[in-house]
């Protein structure tokens, strides 16, 4: 199926239009300006939300953006990708008997204005002479880098991919965050003096030992790797979900989309994959999940969104084999599943029923069942738990001077962009405090 570039862009264009100045003002005026507001508490980065909204109401957009940046340098991304229903908006005091304030969209309004007028943070601190290496330019790395730069440190980010931004650039469906937003955010961080060395992989292009020697501290914000294997026959024709999203952002027109698509998994990435397939022309998209809608790991609003998109769901089905015809996928053979006692994750354990095989027809199968852990931790000799890097309260690993933030440490609960941003911010504060105690290698006179 071939779609013109223009049509692809349209199909995956940012879903919510920006608020008009008038709509933003109306919404901002509706905010009660709570004291010690619960939205601020619920925000992982604790943006002073009533204050930035009040500033929109008073037409002080420069001040509004500065309020957001003071707590969250990646406000533009967070405004788009945050599960606001679970965070700030979910905590809004107006939610009880009417509609919560559209905090996410107001933040986007303030961030769009900052971008338009280049009202970005500027470094006021004197140079400290300390240098920090950050591995990975995703939300965690950029947040950490920007915060450190604002404190006067010299920061270099090493990024394996060609473009900075991590999942914001490559892994978030464009209709939620266009790539350009993430790239501009990275440019803003560069504007603070941070060097981003893209296309450089640690352990391949540069050794960890070199970094440890050259920098006062090293921060890993490396995220996670690709989707793990399903361990089923015919897996070689199954498309990796993250690669599918990446292709839809980097070269959507070249993305091959089936007519009858199956997405294995039921997380937010799986929903994004299903949405892309549907928007780019698949006639039928089915999400296959071994548990039920009660156990899905995607947010409820994502599930609702998927259903509105016309995506179908096949619950209690365990993929067993890809049915191939002439080397191409023709279907997914599944086993019916029965739910048993809760497993380690607290959810009922799925037990495939022997002899219950059935085949769902499909000409494209995409898997989005979590992410593997990267091997960098092993290379550096870091302690891990189930592949996630262990850190202390100040984000330091078992190796002094090496810190880790973001998805690569998030072994429990839901990992999200905004949590990664907060990690970056807190780690930067911890690093600032700790390396200030050590003598500087550079004599500052």
């Amino acid at each position, binding site marked *: 199926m071939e779609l013109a570039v223009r049509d692809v862009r349209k199909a995956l264009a940012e879903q919510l239009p920006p608020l008009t100045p008038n709509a933003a*003002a*109306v919404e901002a*005026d509706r905010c*009660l*300006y*709570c*004291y*010690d*507001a*619960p*939205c601020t*508490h*619920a*925000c*992982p980065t*604790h943006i002073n939300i009533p204050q930035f909204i009040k500033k929109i*109401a008073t037409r002080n957009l420069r001040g509004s953006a500065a309020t957001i940046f003071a707590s969250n340098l990646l406000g533009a991304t967070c405004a788009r990708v945050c599960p606001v*229903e*679970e*965070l*700030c908006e*979910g*905590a809004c*005091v*107006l939610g*009880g008997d009417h509609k919560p304030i559209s905090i996410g969209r107001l933040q986007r309004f303030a961030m769009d204005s900052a971008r338009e007028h280049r009202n970005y943070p500027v470094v006021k601190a004197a140079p400290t002479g300390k240098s920090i290496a950050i591995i990975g330019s995703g939300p965690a790395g950029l947040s950490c880098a920007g915060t450190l730069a604002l404190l006067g440190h010299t920061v270099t980010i090493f990024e394996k991919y060609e473009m900075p931004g991590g999942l914001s650039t490559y892994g978030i469906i464009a209709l939620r965050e266009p790539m350009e937003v993430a790239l501009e955010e990275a440019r803003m961080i560069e504007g603070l003096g941070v060097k981003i060395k893209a296309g450089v992989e640690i352990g391949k292009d540069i050794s960890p030992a070199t970094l440890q020697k050259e920098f006062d501290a090293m921060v890993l914000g490396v995220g996670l790797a690709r989707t793990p294997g399903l361990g089923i026959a015919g897996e070689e024709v199954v498309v990796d979900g993250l690669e599918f999203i990446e292709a839809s952002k980097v070269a959507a027109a070249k993305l091959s989309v089936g007519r009858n698509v199956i997405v294995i998994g039921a997380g937010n990435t799986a929903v994004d994959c299903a949405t892309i397939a549907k928007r780019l022309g698949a006639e039928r998209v089915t999400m296959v999940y071994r548990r039920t809608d009660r156990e899905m790991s995607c947010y409820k609003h994502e599930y609702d969104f998927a259903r509105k998109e016309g995506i179908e769901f096949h619950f209690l089905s365990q993929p067993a084999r890809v049915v191939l015809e002439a080397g191409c996928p023709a279907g997914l053979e599944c086993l019916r599943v029965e739910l048993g006692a809760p497993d380690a994750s607290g959810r009922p354990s799925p037990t495939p029923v022997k002899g219950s095989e059935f085949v769902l027809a499909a000409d494209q199968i995409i898997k989005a069942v979590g992410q593997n852990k990267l091997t960098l931790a092993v290379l550096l000799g870091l302690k891990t738990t189930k592949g996630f890097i262990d850190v202390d309260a100040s984000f330091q690993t078992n190796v002094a001077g090496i810190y880790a933030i973001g998805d690569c440490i998030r072994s429990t609960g839901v990992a999200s962009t*905004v*949590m990664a941003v*907060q990690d970056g911010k*807190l780690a930067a504060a911890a690093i600032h405090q700790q390396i200030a105690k050590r003598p500087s290698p550079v004599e500052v006179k």
Partner: protein
Amino acid sequence: MADLRTNFAGIKSPNPFWLASAPPTNSGAQIHKAFEAGWGGAVWKTIGAPVLNVSNRYGAWHHGRQRMLAINNVELISDRPLEVNLREIVEIKRAWPDRAVIVSAMVESKPEVWRDIIHRIEDTGADGIELNYGCPHGMSERGMGAAVGQVPEYCEQITRWVMEAAHIPVIVKLTPNVTNIVLPARAAVAAGANGLSLINTINSIVGVDLDTLELTPSIGGKGGHGGYAGPAVKPIALNMLAALGTDEIVSKSGIPISGMGGIATWEDAAEFLLLGASSLQVCTTVMHYGFRVIEDLCDGLSNWMDEKGFKTIADLTGRSLNRVSEFKNFDLSFRAVARIDAERCIKCDLCYIACNDTAHQCIDLVSPEGKVVEPSAYDVRANGKRAAAETRPRPVVREEDCVGCRLCYNVCPVDQCIEMVELPPRRGAVTWDELSQMQTPVTEDWDAMEAYREKVGIHIH
């Protein structure tokens, strides 16, 4: 169904709502349309001396998204030819015999000029005349309008000239731009006026343009004070209305008062009636939404009257005047405290910050475990709506420290969440007036005051 019919100094109208003398009553066509919508009467836009108007004549004060909480204008009296106005008045009165048609007038301060305009108005068949002693701009610079209303002697003199010539009811419209509204009112009473109306507009500068640094609105780069009206002036109007209603001379004279100044809803209307108005005049809300607002003004007022058992407008007029008093007569032992309904409270904590920053520091934040906590007392790693909701403290009033100032009640965004609860007094009733007569030193000397407080148990921290 309440009877809304009104008889104001002999001027009859099917309901108490008259359009005030202003842009909405500029022409016969407009008033015709207003009467079709249901208005009980109209005070024709002031006719009299020749004038010329300017553009950008209306400014406005907005707050948040709420537009036009007040309007400010430098429009003058009618700029249409006198003959045209007089002819249209004749036509309107002929077409609408049951409605009140009152003509506002303002001319040079000469007896013969006033006599002439009065006769010409009477010839139209109008029901009454309103003397515009209030216009605060333009006309006042020429010795008319507020220039008259601000000097009780002028007010009395001109009213006498008018009363000698007039055969139909004459209403004197007062300017609020005075230090004591009672004085010009008494002057009008002394001159034999048949009715009073108030308030005219208040002197105001509505704002400064932050780009051009000119006043808003800018009239070719200049601006000046204009007349301020609309919802924002209502409390000022109510105070002046009550001042007349409680003045011995004015109230004993028995002359009716037509109330105006910020009436936008039937609730506003009822309040004006309760404080002594016999008819009501409306302008700004009509300039905002059109003549159609009359429907709910009448409907709402009528429904409320039915609910409360008021049968006529006269039943209502002045019913709350006996509640108007002065500080010196208030019972100093009266005691009320704020109480927050935990069920209704949405925990916006606006009461907490208002009380703690600016009032009497008697609201605490109490955690779900029942402990008094500081604001923002959560870990920086805490997040999510559940954490925020489940750990959020709620504001609780420390009643023993609450002075009952009522600030929290006013800032609370939830209806009926904060209640001012009356508590039994802790000491005998006494007013400041009584105190100053019976225990004079207490009201004049701090040491005596301290001793008095100690004796009766008043502790201020």
